[in-house]
């Protein structure tokens, strides 16, 4: 195993701490790659180490669970002495796909699926089962992807793209969207019924009307409004109605 890879993996868990609009996750990439760069020729006082840190801290963005691919691959290219221009091109080439693959796979796929399963377990079995079930499901993906990404990145170096375009990833991307949609669809009626228990017919009708208005607003009338602002507006009206 590459020296520093465990330390680098733990640092990946903090990679977004210095996230900003200028370099996005760039400083975090430098923070996480640093243990992998310590044994560059000349050591931590050497010019190669410092130059590698400068390059690592440049602008970068990607999904936090998959960013290990870039961290590992860029550190590997530093060790292989790849020319800086080529490293720059690798960096640019990874930014888009790392973001879009991770977003589709996790934020729009596994996370809502795990959340829907957690909700189902919570309302049908018990709160604790729901919470634990959700956390276990989500973190198998979270920690598993982080481990895989860093090790694949280190192994791949300049060829890291082959891992992102691999069959498993393609299959995952094909499956996770429909699975998430199905899981959320399955959870909604049961969760809605659990929340609405004890409400009379008039109240249920009210819930249905608000939900329908919200969906129409979000889909057709005012798509940029967002669920939160719609809800805050509705809450303000309800407070007013409660007073009158």
């Amino acid at each position, binding site marked *: 195993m590459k020296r520093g890879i465990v330390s680098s993996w733990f640092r990946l*868990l*903090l990679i*977004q701490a*210095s*996230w*900003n*609009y*200028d370099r996005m996750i760039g400083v975090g990439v430098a*923070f996480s790659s*640093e243990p992998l760069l310590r044994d560059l020729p000349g050591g*931590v006082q050497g010019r190669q180490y*410092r*130059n590698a*840190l*400068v390059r690592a*801290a440049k602008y970068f963005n990607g999904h936090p669970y998959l960013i290990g691919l870039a961290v590992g691959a860029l550190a590997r290219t530093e060790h292989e002495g790849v020319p800086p221009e080529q490293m720059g091109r690798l960096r640019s080439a990874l930014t888009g796909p790392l*973001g879009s693959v991770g*977003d589709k796979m996790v934020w729009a796929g596994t*996370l*809502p699926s795990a*959340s829907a399963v957690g*909700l189902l377990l*919570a309302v049908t079995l018990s*709160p*604790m089962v729901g*919470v634990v079930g*959700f*956390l276990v499901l989500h*973190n198998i993906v*979270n920690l598993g992807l982080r481990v895989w990404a860093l090790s694949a990145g280190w192994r791949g170096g300049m060829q890291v793209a082959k891992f992102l375009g691999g069959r498993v990833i393609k299959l995952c991307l094909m499956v996770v*969207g*429909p699975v*998430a949609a*199905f*899981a*959320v*669809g*399955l*959870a*909604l*009626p*049961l*969760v809605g019924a659990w*929340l*609405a228990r004890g*409400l009379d017919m008039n109240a249920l009708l009210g*819930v249905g009307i*608000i*939900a329908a208005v*919200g969906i129409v607003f979000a*889909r057709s009338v005012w798509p940029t409004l967002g*669920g939160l602002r*719609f*809800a*805050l507006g509705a*809450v303000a009206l*309800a*407070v007013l109605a*409660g*007073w009158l």
Partner: protein
Amino acid sequence: MIDNAGWLLLWGVVVGLDLICVAQTMVSRPLVAGTVAGAIAGDPMAGMAVGVVLELFAFEVLPFGAARYPDYGLGAVAAAAAATGAPAILGTGLGVSLGLIVAFVGGRGIHLRRLRNGLDLERHVDQLEHGDLRTIYSLHLRGLAREVFRSVIVTALGLLLAEGIRRWAPLTVQGAVYLGIVTLGAALSAAVTGAIRLAGRKSAQQWFMLGLLGGLVGLMLR
């Protein structure tokens, strides 16, 4: 007075850090944040109820790149504190309403923290361009410290508002029921809209409809 306010504040910091900066294990999801906060405050079922409603809102959030989004985790902590001990729908409506406000404020806080991180970076560009490891460490540490600060402020604000609402909410029972109805309706609409957006393609939307059908059948069988 809210029971275990100090522990709730600490839990708020954990939730706030988990959202973006540390590990993203998703203890910051409202289902977890709310249920645990409810347990700390002495009413896990109330915490779970507000957590479930806010979790439905969270289906709409896609934290892509530089997207701005509400912090429903800290919202759930405040919501659970407000709903603790109140009877069912009355507590849930009131708690979730407060949770939505706190989530909005928390989201603005995330944006401000990112801006502050950027200003900090600007001041240290020279050191970064010389590959100074200390600068990288200190930028990162200050980023974490800002997140702790944001979490403390937002959670404390949420707990203060929760305490205020529990003591002096100028609401009738009817008003509290109205709040329950609108927050539940809005949560369901956010979840449906979010799920349709998640599904994206038409074929995936069909999977959503299939799931919905399955859920309805499950409901009838229960």
